């Protein structure tokens, strides 16, 4: 596995914001070592007491690493069990919608968000001198380790982060398929016909489970939409239709009701991995990996003469 992306901190708590952000740009290129210095100088010595997270992926990492008393707010999506693995744990915590005004009124001393979306909001918060930490989207499971380590540092919870990392690495090692046996075709046919490519977090999880993706078969790199016709021709060994997103109704899952899809699904083993398990990279991604790995073993056992 390659080294994880260097994690950039492009923010500062003082008028040095502009200078520091250019430092961190250099640091991004120079590597992790330089970056650590930049990040230490950017944040005050005392641990942050009013942490606000604005992104459902960072919500879940912050929740696992920071003490609850220090979390001022998580994003409202963190409370949606369809997308968040911690929805049932967070209780009565304040939820934000990632709007600058709302975040300001919480008087945060550290804002955590994903390096994805909220660009104007992040720019405003930075200009006003708030400390904003952006975590990159996990492109593979090992990126999660880097994000945990980085958060442990800025949240000043090194021991909790270490414990989490240790457990994550152990489980990752245990669940990753290392053999060179068959790799049955797993197709997730999500709303609007989206399916996994050759790279990205989902593909990494599928590969580690000893399965192959639609992208591996059809030769596309990132996630892509496939038609019902293509799904039929793929003849998957294992299918996940994803969350139907039909309540309230939308056309997104119309394909799932197509007679041809139903005909195929009658004869194909199915699996249901909750979106919350693999939408974001985090400790909960291991649940998706475990589920898929189990399904793979069952598939391989059940086929005396595998088709693949």
């Amino acid at each position, binding site marked *: 596995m390659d080294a994880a992306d260097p994690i950039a901190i492009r923010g500062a708590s003082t008028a040095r914001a502009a200078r520091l952000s250019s430092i961190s740009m250099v640091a991004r290129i120079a590597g992790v070592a330089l970056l650590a210095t930049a990040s230490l100088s950017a944040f005050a010595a005392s641990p942050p007491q009013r942490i606000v997270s604005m992104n459902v992926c960072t919500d879940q990492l912050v929740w696992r690493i920071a003490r609850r008393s220090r979390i001022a707010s998580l994003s409202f999506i963190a409370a949606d069990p369809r997308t968040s693995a911690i929805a049932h744990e967070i209780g009565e915590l304040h939820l934000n919608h990632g709007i600058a005004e709302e975040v300001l009124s919480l008087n945060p001393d550290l804002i955590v968000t994903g390096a994805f979306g909220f660009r104007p909001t992040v720019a405003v918060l930075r200009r006003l001198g708030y400390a904003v930490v952006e975590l990159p989207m996990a492109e593979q499971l090992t990126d999660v380790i880097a994000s945990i380590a980085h958060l442990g540092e800025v949240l000043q919870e090194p021991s909790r982060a270490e414990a989490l990392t240790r457990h994550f690495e152990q489980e990752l090692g245990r669940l990753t398929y290392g053999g060179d046996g068959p790799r049955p075709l797993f197709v997730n046919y999500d709303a609007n016909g989206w399916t996994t490519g050759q790279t990205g977090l989902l593909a990494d999880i599928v590969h580690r489970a000893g399965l192959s993706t639609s992208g591996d078969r059809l030769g596309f790199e990132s996630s892509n939409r496939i038609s019902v*016709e293509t799904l*039929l021709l793929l003849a998957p060994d294992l299918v996940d239709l994803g969350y139907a997103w039909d309540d309230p109704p939308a*056309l*997104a899952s119309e394909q799932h009701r*197509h007679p041809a899809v139903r005909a195929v699904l009658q004869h194909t083993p199915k699996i249901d991995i909750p979106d919350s398990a693999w939408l974001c990279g985090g400790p909960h991604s291991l649940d998706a990996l475990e589920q898929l790995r189990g399904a793979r073993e069952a598939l391989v056992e059940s086929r005396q003469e595998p088709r693949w």
Partner: protein
Amino acid sequence: MVRAWSYPSLLAGLSLATLLAFACSLLVGPSGIGLGELIAVLRSGETSTVSLILWEIRLPRALLGTLIGASLALSGASLQGYLRNPLAEPGIIGVSNASALGAVIAIYTGLSLRYPLTLPLFAIAASLIAVLILQSLAHAGRSLTLILAGVAISSLCGALTSLALSLSPNPFASLEIVFWLLGSITDRSMTHLWLMLPFTVVGWSLLALSARPLDALSLGAETAISLGIDMSRLRWLVTLGTAGSVGAATAVSGVIGFVGLVVPHLLRPLVGYQPSRLLPASALGGAALLLTADVLVRVIATQSELRLGVVTALIGVPFFFYLVTRSKTAYIS
């Protein structure tokens, strides 16, 4: 620009074009299944992946393309004849957008999941309202008033569609604005066909009955009345026929523009400007055009499939420009 085409040979030519486009529609798809395999499936009659693709994916798509294309062009031809306005077309005067709004309300409130018939019915009801509003304006004012009112209805319904979809708590709904405003018949099934077919047949029949009276009307309203044409009957034939066929089509495919505008304009000189001849010719021409556009959608490689409305506009608009610049005289049948 009138060429000496005999009417039967024109219809034969258009039928041939439609058949060819229909065959292409069955043959073209991402899987690259060839003619040989398809014929083998037809012979063996067994259920396989190829037969599923042919019967459940490509056939409904080709049939829908035929019906929807014919409905749009037929309504365009009859609206142009009845309103005596060359720009009257379901897309431009807002009937299509109104239908889409009706369909959107049926789907996103969850009604159509419980009662599938509400999907075409809501679309038809909405398009009926749009046609009625337009006609009341058309009688009051000049042809420009009609088009302006149509543009207003069209924009309003488009905006309301976007609003309804944005208000839906389903995160995917807002992405579907594109489908409703630009149209597509990808991955539709026989269910959709059965849902729209009865309304389409009724709509076509009503429009067919309007053919003769439209001939008389082309001589002027007063002449038509003196020839014994019942104007209010004609009005209802065109109104209900358009609402039924366009509403049913749009409920399944979203808004597809320009077919109803371009096809009648292309064919009008070839049928000697006679509405009763223009209607059948337009139906065939519309089917051929939409089927061709739907094949192009599959052939032109893009990240995700192009929308039908994009292709019909790309084909239709240059033709239309050509026609407009060539004929400086007002062509009204």
